[in-house]
């Protein structure tokens, strides 16, 4: 009898929990009452919480907290809380958890391709940000902001892969100029290599989300995925395999620094080698330029940025970095306040300050005409390289499955350099088949 009573009590408890179980999906009441909200509501302020992709003490974290302070001085009825999250993947994972628990922030900075994942929860920014402000953003940077007719994100810390060149090593080897094509890249790498002193002519890191590979692929005319997100394209021709072979051959010749034979984070390994004068050139985000310029100068090297090498007549490159997304779960008042914050951050003063501080692209058209950006471009032509390269931006994959796809792809790319005798063609075919399976199983 006791057992029966216990069983009934247990089932009742479980049923109670199940009945109160929140069904997944947008809810008008979810994601509003964040912890700081109660206090601010009592003060009669509207809360705006922004999840920043970088740590609070990073350049971006400090910039955003200063900008938020200026904004709240102008708008005392709004309270802005900036929360550093520590990386694009970290933001995405926490947003995933927040979506399930109904605690999404008002705004978040997400890697531009994560729009494919989070757009079902996005607010239409054209309702909360003025047309003038939207029209002022560089068109090329808005290419990955619209999805299904919805303006879901606006540019913030945007970047593009550019060639980092150690001019001092180039001059020492008597190499003039910089490579504008991949053929020249390989030829110059051979000239720049100095095995006796442990100097490699070039280095490559595919990046954790295959971003650099993607860009090199576009520069050769290749594609990752069809625009309808249904078909993986990189396994359908030899372009992807040839990109991999280019770097495998350079590594086998001894002219390419290969971070994938080390256990550490490939970016850290290649960055350290470049800063120590052991790598003469590599592709990296222009967003690192501010930091690298300082460190290279301290190490006694001259740093230059050069345009991404091309594999065909017309250059085509990836864009990258973060966009701001506003979540639909916020209240109307929060959305209006968040819209004002976005407009505030799009003012020339803040766009130019951020670009000068970090090296990220000035995101607006009017900011390019300011004295600050013109002076910057005059003083260091490297800044201009990235601005000009934006004309060649290629649309990024905007599928919810991109993360699963790039994880698989990166593993195969990594393997091709860890074991440089791996057959690149079959590796790319296998990767494409596995990625296609992901799309088929879980279509957008």
């Amino acid at each position: 009898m006791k057992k029966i009573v216990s069983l009934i009590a247990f089932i009742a408890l479980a049923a109670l929990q199940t009945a109160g179980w929140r069904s997944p999906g947008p809810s008008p009441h979810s994601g509003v009452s964040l912890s700081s909200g109660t206090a601010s509501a009592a003060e009669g302020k509207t809360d705006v919480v922004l999840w920043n992709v970088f740590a609070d003490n990073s350049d971006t974290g400090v910039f955003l907290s200063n900008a938020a302070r200026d904004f709240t001085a102008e708008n005392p009825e709004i309270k802005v809380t900036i929360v550093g999250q520590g990386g694009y993947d970290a933001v995405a994972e926490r947003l995933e958890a927040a979506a399930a628990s109904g605690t999404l922030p008002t705004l978040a900075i997400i890697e531009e391709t994560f729009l494919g994942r989070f757009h079902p929860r996005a607010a239409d920014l054209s309702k909360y940000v003025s047309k003038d402000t939207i029209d002022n953003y560089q068109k090329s940077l808005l290419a990955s902001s619209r999805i299904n007719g919805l303006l879901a994100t606006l540019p913030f810390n945007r970047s593009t892969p550019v060639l980092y060149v150690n001019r001092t090593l180039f001059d020492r080897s008597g190499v003039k100029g910089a490579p504008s094509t991949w053929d020249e890249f390989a030829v110059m790498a051979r000239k720049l290599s100095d095995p006796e002193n442990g100097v490699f002519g070039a280095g490559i890191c595919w990046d954790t989300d295959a971003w650099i590979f993607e860009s090199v692929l576009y520069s050769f005319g290749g594609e990752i995925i069809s625009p309808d997100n249904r078909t993986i394209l990189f396994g359908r021709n030899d372009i992807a395999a040839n990109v991999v072979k280019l770097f495998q051959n350079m590594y086998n010749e001894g002219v390419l620094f290969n971070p994938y034979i080390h256990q550490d984070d490939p970016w850290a390994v290649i960055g350290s080698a470049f800063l120590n004068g052991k790598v003469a050139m590599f592709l990296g985000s222009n967003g690192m330029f501010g930091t690298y310029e300082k460190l290279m100068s301290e190490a006694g090297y001259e740093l230059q940025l050069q345009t991404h090498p091309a594999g065909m007549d017309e250059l085509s490159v990836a864009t990258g970095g973060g966009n701001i997304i506003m979540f639909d779960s916020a209240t109307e008042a929060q959305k209006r306040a968040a819209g004002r914050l976005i407009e505030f951050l799009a003012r020339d003063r803040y766009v130019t300050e951020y670009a000068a501080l970090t090296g990220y692209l000035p995101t607006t058209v009017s900011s390019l005409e300011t004295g600050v950006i013109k002076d910057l471009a005059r003083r260091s032509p490297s800044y201009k390289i990235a601005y000009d390269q934006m004309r060649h931006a290629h649309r990024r994959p905007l599928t919810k499955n991109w993360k699963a796809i790039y994880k698989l792809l990166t593993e195969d790319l990594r393997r091709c350099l860890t074991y440089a005798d791996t057959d690149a063609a079959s590796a790319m075919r296998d990767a494409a088949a596995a990625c296609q399976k992901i799309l088929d199983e879980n279509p957008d």
Partner: protein
Amino acid sequence: MNESPRVAGNIIRRMEMRFVNPILKSPYALILPALAICVCFSVIPALMAFRNSFFSVDYVAGVDRFAGMANYRSIFTDGAFIQVFRNTVVFTFFSAAFGIPLAVLTAVFLNSNSPLCNFTQGVVFTPHVISFVSVSTLWTFMMDPQFGILNYALGLLGIRPLMWLLGENTSLPSIIIVSVWKTLGYNVLIVVSALQTIPREVYESAMLDRSGPVRTFFHITLPMISPFFVFLITTCVAQTLNTFDLVRLMTGGGPKNSSNLMVYWIYETGYLHFQVGKAMAGAVIFLFFVGAVSLLNFALTSRRAYYQ
């Protein structure tokens, strides 16, 4: 004289005897707090996982659709799941097969009066108190194919360098090594405690009977500490089956899933690939597997344990 306080006191006492005391005497009332925590944090999530394993769930897109057996069909036709399941079995088996005998040998040594005992104790227990992040960083450096001390040592012995965490054939053995090293301190602690429960007189009798150290070990020490093995094997197997940190921090399950284990696969499928239903189907299968292993473990080990 006012009688009302005494009357009220009597009523409260009577109510206590009638209602409160029987509740407090009931074993179910006493375990209620623990039971409530267990139900909230284990049973209900398990039921939710079971329910979600039959649904197509996407919290971001707001999808929650009945999918029948599709998630189960998907994982059984997924080569990755089979591979990860096999990895988990291999990882658990070898972690226990190497970890427990090594713990017993180390504990027997520590239980002796060797002058090296204190030093060995420090060496063995330190990994247990170091965080997984530090352990992973340390071994990642040591296993670096180019600059790692392990390949340097292999080189001195004339052995070709290994790719360790980067190789498809070496990544799983690499994390088994780290797992055995990390859990050794805890296992040794349990075995040392067990050894100290054996009365000295038993060994003295064995000495009088001219029993050698090997015979004493197999016929006295091991049987006397066998009840502790039930606990040790159960906790060791449960711990290794649930390994997440090492995979997350050292290999991310790669290369090509060669070091991926079930718990990380569930997280990866649900959180990184956004296939919550499929991840939950994997979790349900894993739940039954862990339950079966635990029952088997109890059935096999408790029968062979010697209780004084």
